[in-house]
C-alpha cells in the first residue's frame, strides 16, 4: 500500500501497514461543500494529528470517516475495507470509535450508564479497572448525572467510554478544548499510555503545543484539503511554515 501515498501525504512512518487510508474524500453539509479532496494515511499504532484553523474541515474529516456526514464521496479504507458507503453503526463495529468535540455526554444518563453505553464491538477493550486507573475521578462519580461533571471530567468520561469497546482506532476531536492546563496534561499522559497499549489515534487539535507532545505525525488541513504533512522529527524544520498555516 505504501506506493499509493500521494504528494499530499509524504510523511509516512516506516512500520506497519496503513490502518486508515483516505483518498480524495469530499463531504457536504447540506448545500455547502466542506471537504475538497482529503488524502492521508494513518498507520497502525500511530498518533496522527490534523492541524488547521477553525473551519478548515478537520472535524468534518473525522465525521466523514465515522460515517455521520450525509453526503460524502471518495474513498476511506479501514483495514483495506472501503467504508465510504457504510453506515456509522457498522463502521463502529469494525473498530473505529469517535469522541466528538462537544463530548456528547448524555444528560439523562448517569456517569455509569454513560460509561457503559457504547456496546463492546470486539474483544480487547480495556477492562474497567484499567479505565478507573487512568481516570480515577470517574470512579468516585459513577452515580452523578453525566452532565453534572466538570468539563474536564466530561472529557475524561467521553474518552473513557470508548476505551472499553474494543475499538482500536480512536478519533479524538479537540480533547483539550476549554480545559485547564493540569487536565490537558492528564489527557496528554492518557494518550501516550493508550499509544503504548497499542491504540491508533487520530487527533484533531487547535492546541499545537499539546499536539506536539503526543503526535508522531501531523497533517495540515486548509479549505477542505490536506496541504502539508510531516513527522515529529521534521517538526523543528517546519515551524515557520506551520506558523504561517495556523496563523499563530
Amino acid at each position, binding site marked *: 500500500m505504501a506506493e499509493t501515498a500521494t504528494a499530499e501525504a509524504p510523511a509516512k512512518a516506516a512500520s506497519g501497514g496503513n490502518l486508515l487510508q483516505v483518498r480524495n474524500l469530499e463531504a457536504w453539509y447540506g448545500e455547502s461543500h466542506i471537504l475538497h479532496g482529503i488524502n492521508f494515511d494513518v498507520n497502525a499504532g500511530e498518533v496522527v494529528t490534523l492541524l488547521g484553523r477553525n473551519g478548515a474541515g478537520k472535524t468534518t474529516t473525522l465525521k466523514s470517516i*465515522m*460515517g*455521520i456526514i450525509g453526503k460524502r464521496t471518495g474513498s476511506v479504507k479501514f483495514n483495506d475495507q472501503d467504508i465510504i458507503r457504510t*453506515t*456509522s*453503526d457498522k*463502521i*463502529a*463495529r469494525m473498530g473505529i*470509535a*469517535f469522541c*466528538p468535540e462537544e463530548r*456528547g455526554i*448524555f*444528560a*439523562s*444518563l448517569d456517569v455509569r*450508564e454513560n460509561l*457503559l*453505553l*457504547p*456496546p463492546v*464491538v470486539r474483544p480487547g477493550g480495556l477492562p474497567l479497572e484499567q479505565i478507573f486507573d487512568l481516570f480515577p475521578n470517574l470512579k468516585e462519580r459513577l452515580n452523578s448525572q453525566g452532565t453534572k461533571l466538570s468539563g474536564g471530567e466530561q472529557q475524561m468520561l467521553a474518552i473513557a467510554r*470508548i476505551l472499553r*469497546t474494543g475499538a482500536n482506532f480512536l478519533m479524538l476531536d479537540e480533547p483539550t478544548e476549554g480545559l485547564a492546563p493540569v487536565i490537558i496534561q492528564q489527557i496528554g499522559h492518557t494518550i501516550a499510555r493508550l499509544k503504548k497499549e497499542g491504540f491508533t489515534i487520530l487527533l484533531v487539535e487547535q492546541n499545537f503545543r499539546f499536539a506536539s507532545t503526543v503526535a508522531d505525525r501531523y497533517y495540515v488541513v486548509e479549505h477542505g484539503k490536506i496541504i502539508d504533512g510531516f513527522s515529529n522529527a521534521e517538526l523543528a524544520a517546519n515551524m515557520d511554515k506551520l506558523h504561517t498555516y495556523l496563523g499563530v
Partner: protein
Amino acid sequence: MQALYAQLLVGLINGSFYALLSLGLAVIFGMLNIINFAHGALYMMGAFVAYFLLNLGGINYWWALLFAPIIVGIFGMILERTMLQWLTGLDHLYGLLLTFGIALIVQGVFQNYFGSSGLPYAIPDQLKGGMNLGFMFLPVYRGWVVIFSLVVCIATWFLIEKTRLGAYLRAATENPTLVRAFGVNVPRMITLTYGLGVGLAALAGVLSAPINQVRPLMGADLIIVVFAVVVIGGMGSIMGSIITGFALGVIEGLTKYFYPEASNTVVFVLMVLVLLVKPTGLTGRAA
C-alpha cells in the same frame, strides 16, 4: 358515599387508559419526534384484534392480552418502516398530518365493516363478579384493569429508566447520531420503540374491550382527552405521563361526582391553565 367511590373507580379506570396511552405517546415522541395521532386508532385495533381472536380463532382474553399488542405492534412497525421513517428531520406538523390521516383511514375501514355500534366482548370468567370491600362494591374486572395497567406502566418505566436497553433509548432520544456512531442500530431501535408504544395502546384497547365494548370510534373519542393529558403532563417524562394519566382520570371522576356538568371539560380547563402557567407541561422539558 357509594356514588363517590364508584366515580373514583371509573376515574381510576379511565386514568389507566390515559396512562397507558400517554406513556406510549411520550415514548414515541421522544424517539421519533412524532406526535402520534394514530394512537387512538391503534388502541381501537387492539380491541378489535382481541375480538377477532376470540370470535374467529377461539383465542381467549388472556392470550389476547399477549397477542393483540404484538399483532398491532407489528402493524405499527410496518407503518414506521414504510411511512414514518421518511419524516425524520421534518417539522412536527408532517408527522401529525400523516398519523392523523392514518387514523382516519384505519377508523374508516373499520366503520365501513362494523358501523358505529359496539360489539360485545365478555369479561373472562376468572374476572367476573365483584367483591364487597365494606365501603363499596368492586367489580373484579375493574380492579384488575387498574392494577394490571399500573404494573405495566411501572414495568415500562423500569425498562426505560433502569435497564441497559433503556439507557440506549434515553441516549438515542438525546443524540441519535452519536449513539449510532457507537455501533447501535438506531433505526431498528426506533422501529421497535414505535412498536412498543403502539403495543401499549393496543394493550389498553384489549383491557377496555369488556368495559366499553369494541367500537371503531372508541379511540377517536378517547384520544382527544389523552392529548390533553399529554399536554398537561409534558411530553418529556415517562413517570410524568403515568402519574398525570392516573391523576387526571381521578380528577375527572371526582368532577363527575361533585359537579357532573363539568366532567367532560375539566381536563381541558386544566390543560388551558397549565399552558398558561407552564407551557412545557408539569413534568416536561423545554423542547
